[in-house]
C-alpha cells in the first residue's frame, strides 16, 4: 500500500489520472464522432454497384481489419509526416489512425445490418415510387439501426480499451499515467485504479446502449 495510505500522494495521483483521462476521452470521442459516419459512407461505397467504388473500399477494409491497430498508429504517426512534410499533432495523428480503423469495422457492421433487412422492404419501397436514396433513408436505415445496436456497442467498448494502445507513440493518457506512477513508486495500485476507470466508462457505455436497444424494441421484425 503506497497510495491508499498516503492521502497527499493519492490526491496527486488522482489529479494526474484525471488529466490522462481527458486525453483518453478526447481520443475516444473524436474517434467515434468521425468513424461512425465515415463507416456509413464506406459501407455505401462497399455496397456500390460500381466496381471502381467497391474494390478500393474492400481493399481498405481488408487492410484496416487485417493489420494491428498499433501498426496503423505507428504508420500514421511516423510515416505520414515523411510523406507530407509537416509533423502532425500527436492527438491528430492517432485520431486519424483510430478513425480509419474503426470506420472499417463499423462499415462492415452497417453492411451486415443492411443485408439483414429483408429484400422485400426495398421492393415495397420501389413499387411505391420511392427513389433509391429515399428508400434507404426512410425505410432501410431505420431498420438497420435496430439491428446494429449490439454489434456497435461491442466495438465502442473495445474502443474504450484500445485507447491505451497510444502509449506506444508516447501519448500520456490514462493508462500511461497509471503505468508511470506504478513504476516510479513500485506499486500496482495506480493500474488498478485505471482499470476501475475503464470499467466505469464501459459500464456507462453499456447502460446507454441498453437504453437505445430498449428504445428500438417498440417494434418487431
Amino acid at each position, binding site marked *: 500500500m503506497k497510495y491508499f495510505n498516503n492521502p497527499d500522494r493519492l490526491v496527486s495521483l488522482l489529479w494526474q489520472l484525471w488529466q490522462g483521462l481527458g486525453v483518453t476521452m478526447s481520443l475516444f470521442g473524436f474517434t467515434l464522432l468521425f468513424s461512425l459516419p465515415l463507416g456509413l459512407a464506406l459501407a455505401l461505397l462497399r455496397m456500390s454497384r460500381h466496381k471502381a467504388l467497391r474494390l478500393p473500399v474492400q481493399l481498405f477494409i481488408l487492410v484496416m481489419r487485417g493489420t494491428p491497430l498499433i501498426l496503423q498508429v505507428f504508420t500514421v504517426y511516423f510515416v505520414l509526416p515523411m510523406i507530407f512534410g509537416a509533423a502532425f499533432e500527436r492527438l491528430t495523428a492517432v485520431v486519424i489512425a483510430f478513425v480509419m480503423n474503426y470506420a472499417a469495422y463499423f462499415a462492415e457492421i452497417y453492411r451486415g445490418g443492411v443485408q439483414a433487412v429483408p429484400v*422485400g422492404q426495398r*421492393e415495397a419501397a420501389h*413499387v411505391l415510387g420511392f427513389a433509391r436514396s429515399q428508400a434507404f433513408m426512410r*425505410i432501410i436505415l431505420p431498420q438497420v439501426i435496430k439491428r446494429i445496436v449490439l454489434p456497435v456497442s461491442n466495438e465502442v467498448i473495445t474502443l474504450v480499451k484500445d485507447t491505451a494502445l497510444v502509449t506506444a507513440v508516447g501519448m500520456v493518457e490514462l493508462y500511461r499515467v497509471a503505468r508511470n506512477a506504478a513504476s516510479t513508486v513500485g506499486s500496482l495500485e495506480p493500474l488498478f485504479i485505471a482499470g476501475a476507470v475503464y470499467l466505469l466508462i464501459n459500464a456507462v457505455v453499456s447502460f446507454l446502449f441498453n437504453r437505445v436497444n430498449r428504445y428500438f424494441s417498440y417494434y418487431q421484425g
Partner: protein
Amino acid sequence: MLQAENITKRYADNKVLRGVSLRVDRGEVVAVIGPSGSGKSTLLRCLIDLERVDGGRIMVGGETLVDSQAGGYAGKAALRRVILKMGFVFQSFNLFPHLTVLRNVTEAQERVLKRSKREARERAMEVLDKVGLSDKASEYPYMLSGGQQQRVAIARALAMDPQMLCFDEPTSALDPLLTMEVLRVIKGLAEEDRTMLVVTHEMAFAREVADRVVFMKEGTVRCEGTPEEVFDHPEVRAFSSQAPKP
C-alpha cells in the same frame, strides 16, 4: 391499360419467360394461373421494374416502360411515372415494420406524391376504412394477423391512387379463413371496376372474379380467355384438379 408483348427473361440458363404477351384493358380483372415455376411472379415483377426483361415491350397507360426494339428501358422520369400508375401487392405483404399502420399508408403519399400530412392522413383513413382496418391505424404491423397485414398492404397501394393494381398470390401466405377476408376485399375492388391483374392459386376466386383468365406454363401463355373457356381447356383441367381447393 397494360400491354406486354413478347417478353423474354432468363436467369442464367433458365429461360423463365419465353415470349409472353399479355394485355389488360381498363376496368378489366385478369387472373393469371399456372403451375409453380411457370414464371407468373417473374412476369408481374417485370411489369413494375422489379426485374428487367431481356426482350419485348411493356406499355402501361400509354407510357413505355421498355421496348427492346426501340431504345430499351425508359429514362428515370418515365420509369417513375410507370411505377406510380401501378399498385403492387406482394405475397409476403412487405409492410414497413418500424412504422405504424397509418404511417405505412401515409409515408409514400407524403414523400413520393408530396401530399400534405393532412391530405395523406385523410386518404389513408379512407382506404383503411375500405379494407376494414381504420381502428388499427396506430398499431404496428407485427400486432396484426396475416390477413390484416395484407389488407393494410392493399390500402397502402390504393392510397397512391394507381390506375391499375397487381397482386402476386396475395393469399398464399394465409390460412383459409384469412384468405377469405383478403379475397373479399379484392372482390370489392373488382366490383368498383378497377383494373387488376391477379396471380392466384385460388381457382374458385379466379373463376368468379376474373373477366379473363390467363394460364401460364413453362414460361409461355398456354391459353387465355373467359374463365369458362380457360377452365375447360384440358391442360388447365389437369392443373386445377391438382391445385389445392379453397
